[in-house]
């Protein structure tokens, strides 16, 4: 009967209830859509930079990350490999050798980060071929693949030569000529302007560092938490020899960029919720005030105040719940559409977005937690507002209420 009463009371003033439900629905729609787009952009960035390139967890020689020098590299032997593979959640290991070099072509020079990689093992991550814009993956020792902005900077094309000069292993000089075999889109503006990829063995030879690697990218199960995995790996390995880092430690700038960017979106959503709060409160206020006589009657004939308060509280929750559910239903196909067909800003002033390190393609993120979070926020607001009628009813004097 309490539920029946609450439900029927909602529809006593259909227009007002529908307006309130519609406003909650629009707020939920906008909040979920805005957040899906925003988090989708971040997830895309993390996937491009972390998931498809740096990996979620890496093992280095101790001190390498603080001083990223070739001399802080290490050799990978079977014992180390088996120890790492034995850790729960690890699915594979991808060795890499990274070093800086000065690259020249024609009369242009640029400092670049060269990464030597084993194309076979890289296939466990996002295959390099999938990201090539033109050309092919390095097949010969003197072939390199360069980021698309590196190619743009040097105004080079496939088959052109880049000259690298840098420091080799233990202070030796390293210099070499390399042919551009492919141009790659790293799906990240910053990586695109500094990346050069080549064969691991070829790079080790160029640096005179046979068998040396600087990074072991750890591949993990999809559902394994990277921070917990890094912790397990750190326990399994000798901490005096190796350091284990997750991407949050290695690339705090991504976290920071996301946090800074995220604040703007959250402020917008907070404003939206503030407006909704006043909307719901206005409705609840009217629901109580216009029924004071009736509430007085109900208490007079013996209805317990707590039960009466529960009815009005339930009305507030039901009203909000309808708005939340309808908002979720309405936004789902839109979010799904933009998940499948990301918003492409590459032709519409994407420089601002790129300067933050984001790819100018924004896929909406399909994540149930976005729905549950915003649904719970609105229900939380409704519950808080619901305390107002409870307070009014607990203080209700039936005689005064019936005179109102």
């Amino acid at each position, binding site marked *: 009967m309490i539920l029946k009463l609450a439900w029927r009371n909602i529809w006593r003033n259909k227009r007002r209830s529908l307006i309130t439900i519609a406003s909650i629905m629009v707020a939920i729609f906008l909040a979920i859509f805005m957040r899906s787009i925003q988090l989708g952009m971040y997830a895309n960035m993390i996937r491009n930079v972390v998931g498809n390139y740096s990996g979620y967890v890496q093992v280095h020689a101790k001190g390498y990350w603080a001083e990223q020098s070739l001399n802080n590299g290490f050799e990978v032997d079977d014992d180390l490999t088996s120890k790492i593979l034995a850790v729960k959640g690890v699915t594979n290991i991808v060795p890499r050798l990274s070093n800086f070099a000065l690259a020249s072509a024609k009369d242009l020079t640029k400092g670049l980060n060269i990464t030597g990689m084993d194309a076979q093992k890289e296939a466990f991550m996002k295959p390099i071929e999938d990201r090539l814009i033109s050309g092919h993956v390095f097949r010969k020792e003197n072939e390199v693949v360069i980021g698309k902005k590196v190619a743009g900077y040097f105004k080079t094309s496939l088959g052109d030569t880049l000259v690298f000069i840098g420091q080799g292993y233990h202070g030796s000089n390293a210099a070499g000529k390399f042919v551009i075999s492919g141009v790659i889109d790293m799906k990240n503006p910053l990586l695109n302007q500094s990346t050069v990829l080549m064969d691991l063995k070829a790079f080790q030879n160029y640096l005179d560092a046979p068998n040396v690697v600087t990074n072991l990218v750890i591949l993990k199960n999809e559902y394994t938490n990277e921070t917990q995995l890094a912790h397990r790996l750190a326990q399994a390995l000798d901490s005096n020899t190796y350091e284990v880092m997750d991407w949050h430690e290695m690339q705090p700038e991504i976290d920071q960029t996301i946090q800074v960017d995220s604040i703007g979106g959250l402020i917008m959503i907070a404003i939206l919720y503030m407006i909704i709060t006043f909307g719901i409160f206005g409705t609840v206020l009217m629901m109580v005030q216009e029924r004071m006589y*009736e509430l007085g009657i109900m208490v007079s004939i013996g209805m317990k105040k707590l039960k009466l308060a529960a009815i009005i509280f339930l009305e507030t929750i039901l009203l909000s719940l309808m708005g939340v559910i309808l908002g979720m239903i309405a936004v789902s196909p839109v979010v799904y559409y933009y998940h499948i067909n990301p918003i492409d800003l590459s032709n519409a002033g994407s420089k601002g977005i790129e300067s933050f390190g984001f790819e100018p393609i924004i896929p909406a993120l399909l994540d149930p937690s976005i729905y549950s979070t915003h649904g719970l926020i609105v229900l939380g607001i409704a519950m808080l507002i619901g305390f107002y009628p409870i307070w009014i009813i607990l203080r209700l004097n039936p*005689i005064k209420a019936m005179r109102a």
Partner: protein
Amino acid sequence: MSIITTKDLFKIYNADSEIEVRALNGVNLDIQEGEFTAIVGPSGSGKTTLLNIIGGLDQPTSGSVIINDTEVTKLSSNQLIDFRLHNIGFVFQAYNLIPVLTALENVEFIMMMQGQAKDLRQKRAIELLKAVGLEKEINKRPNKMSGGQQQRVAVARALASKPRFVLADEPTANLDSKSTAQLLDIMAALNQKEGTTFIFSTHDQRVIDRAKRVITLDDGKIISDV
């Protein structure tokens, strides 16, 4: 047997100010079980205040109300709600039904609050609605019924909880003569057949004419009791 006793009942508004209003000025009253009593008097004589205090809806400034050995003036707000639910039926002047419930549900509602089983309360609600001549209107909501029909539902609801007595505050004030006559017939029949005690506050001569006992109030005092 006396079911309601009031002793030196005073209700004074603005007691500390110069414009003190004595709504009840020492009312001593005994109501016997099975009475059909009208409390009459001019506006402002204290009729509604007396009914509100007897019904536990209001507190006297001093004095006591004893209903079946329970001094209701000493009960807490929550105890009073419970006491009203099990002991007193109310009929108010107008618009006193829950608008979103049907006639049947309105009558059932009070029994639901008493915790009665659904089949029992439905059976009794239908019986009561038949008794007040509304068997065809049980599924109508108040806004689809006339004022007279609404008051009859209110009487059925007041009786649903099997109260010790029914307090009716100006129950015929908004009714035409036909509806008033019907309502009075029903209440008189219930009083005679089932011994239900009715106490009215009224201006209405038609009600006064049907009452077995008429208590007249003026300036908060009983000036006649016949």
